[in-house]
């Protein structure tokens, strides 16, 4: 009996070491044959719709890009893992991508997750292309991080312009969902609105696990605001809008890109009323390039492109172009190349600034109309 138990321990240890030995990839030299790219984003949970459409855009972008030069014969392999919008999950995935030998990563979608994974990817030196919009992401000094989208400073400022100018609002109340994205974008909006002479009557943090914001609404609606700004995820936004309308609020309901999805309109219900959101993509019929992209997307995924599909497509091209330029997947060289690169995107030529943030990112304001989103104006056009 004793001997048997001792033997089983030895066997167990042998099995475990055997497993770990074949875990991580050991063929570093083969990196020019296969370009391994990691993806981390939400495929389940609150922002699954965003995550999936971003991922699909990347897939299309990677397939459409003909590799040239030294990487001509390389194959691109994309490993996509679900972080469910959870920072802990995001970090676990980051470690997996690193141990799986990824050459670069697309990660992540939710600002809270990206802020958590940045240091991990930075230590590994991997180029990280994020779709998150919190300004802190590129303010922390990580040279390997690229934020190729409009950040919250732009989103908050554009909506403040629109609220003060086009809508002529004077007294606004703000809500956020206590998450890093929601808090950040709400604060930038509030600051920008005050600079434009709008009175901000308060910024209330809401509890995501609660579904009842009636009490919080009742408190601030007593101050007679003429507009509500909400920064945060779509579920809270939809419920807040619904409960604000039920409480008899008829003014405009404003929000960031997270509210640009059908879920918002459905969750708010029939009385959605006047609602405006900032969003980073123009309508697909606004240019032949975008129309071609939309058609190709629909042919492949049998659905219309989602909110961030164009961004995924652009980022895929941006990354592969940088790799071609240096003729290798060596992370340090690719990071350098990404910093200087002017890339021909679906929106025209684009470039990142020295922090890694997209210069002159386009931003648009949409209104909810008949259960759908309709373009109102391009931000900055009438300023």
């Amino acid at each position, binding site marked *: 009996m004793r001997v048997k138990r001792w033997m089983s321990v030895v066997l167990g240890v042998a099995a475990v070491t055997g497993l770990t030995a074949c875990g991580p990839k050991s063929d570093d030299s083969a990196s020019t044959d296969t370009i391994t790219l990691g993806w981390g984003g939400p495929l*389940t*949970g609150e922002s*699954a*719709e965003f995550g999936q459409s971003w991922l699909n855009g990347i897939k299309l972008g990677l397939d459409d890009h003909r590799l040239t030069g030294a990487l001509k014969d390389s194959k691109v392999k994309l490993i996509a893992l679900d972080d469910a919008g959870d920072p802990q999950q995001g970090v676990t995935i980051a470690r997996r991508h690193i141990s799986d030998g990824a050459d670069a990563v697309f990660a992540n979608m939710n600002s809270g997750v990206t802020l958590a994974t940045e240091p991990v990817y930075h230590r590994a030196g991997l180029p990280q292309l994020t779709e998150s919009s919190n300004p802190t992401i590129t303010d922390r000094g990580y040279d390997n991080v690229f934020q190729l989208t409009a950040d919250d400073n732009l989103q908050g400022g554009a909506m403040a312009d629109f609220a003060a100018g086009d809508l002529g609002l004077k007294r606004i109340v703000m809500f956020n969902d*206590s998450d890093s994205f929601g808090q950040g974008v709400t604060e930038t909006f509030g600051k920008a609105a005050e600079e434009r002479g709008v009175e901000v009557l*308060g910024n*209330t*943090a*809401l*509890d995501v*696990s*609660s*579904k*009842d*914001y*009636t*009490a*919080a609404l*009742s*408190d*601030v609606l*007593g101050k007679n605001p003429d507009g509500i700004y909400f920064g945060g995820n779509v*579920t809270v936004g*939809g*419920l807040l809008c*619904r409960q604000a*309308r*039920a*409480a*008899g609020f008829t003014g405009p309901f404003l929000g960031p890109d997270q509210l640009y999805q059908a*879920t918002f309109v*459905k*969750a708010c*219900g*029939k*009385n959605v009323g006047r609602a405006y959101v900032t969003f980073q993509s123009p309508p697909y019929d606004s240019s032949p390039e975008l129309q071609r992209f939309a058609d190709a997307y629909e042919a492949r995924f049998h659905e219309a492109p989602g909110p961030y599909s164009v961004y995924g497509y652009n980022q895929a091209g941006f990354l592969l172009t940088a790799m071609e330029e240096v003729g290798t997947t060596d992370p340090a060289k690719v990071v350098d190349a990404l910093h200087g690169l002017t890339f021909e995107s679906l929106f025209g030529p684009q470039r990142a600034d020295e922090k890694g943030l997209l210069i002159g990112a386009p931003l648009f304001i949409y209104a909810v109309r008949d*259960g759908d989103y309709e373009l109102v104006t391009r931000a900055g056009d009438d300023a």
Partner: protein
Amino acid sequence: MKHFLTLLFNGLTLGAIYALIALSFTMVYGVLKLINFAYAGLFTLGAYSAIWGLGVVGVTSSSTLALTATIGLLVLALLGAMAFTGTIGTLVERVAYRPLRHAPLLAPLISALGVVLILQNGVLLVAGSTPKFFPLDVSGGGLVIAGARLSALQITVVPLALGLMVVLYALVHRTHFGLGIRATADDIRTARLMGIRTDRTIGLVFFLGSALGGAAGVMYALYYGTATYLMGYTPSIKAFTAAVIGGIGNIPGAVLGGFLLGLMESFAAGYSGSLTGGAIGPNYQDVFAFLILIAILTVKPTGLLGARISR
């Protein structure tokens, strides 16, 4: 005044929903001394089965219906969901609790936690993680009192919870079947010797409790318009708390506890911001509510009306 009334109406509505689940907790606890956490899952199942049932009949968010048709469909959906969750609840008792009836009290509790995980993940597996929307919308209508709106739904939910409480109370204290429940609660062995079919009685208690939990889920989804697979977690913890404040095992206590908790939450969220100059927002509502609860339990550890179902 308007703010106060809005908070009052909202607190009563929340309280009614908590009270319904608290009634389920209290019924089962009264008879078996078991905290049936499976209600978190049954609550979710109730909401999803109603949405699914309405979808099968062809009702979608875009359908326009007359008020009478809406109410008729709602009653049918509610009854259907109650029958479904009642059946599942009885099944859960048969499979997960009955084999453990003579085991130490902690064993069925762990089993209950397992049931919650299975039910929630079952819903996740079948329906996915994206939120579902309740196809009927009754958020309009109602009365306006001193500027505060009391919606048609709010008017319905509160009397419904009170009505169910009265029916349950009468069932337990005035009927032959209720006598069986009370006898089983007092002493299960003696009750069996006296010819009471205790297994059947317990099964029925589970059916009733689970049906109430399912009904609460339908109302919650109706009130907030959305359902997610994790929706049952927070309300069921709150309802359990409500049952404990009222005195677990006590039917009027569960309802009192439910309303008390709902009102405390609503007022805490509505006034915390203005009382603290914005330093503490409504996202701390639960902290306030639970501080008061701790205070109540310190003074009255058996709960406000603390007594078991039979006494």
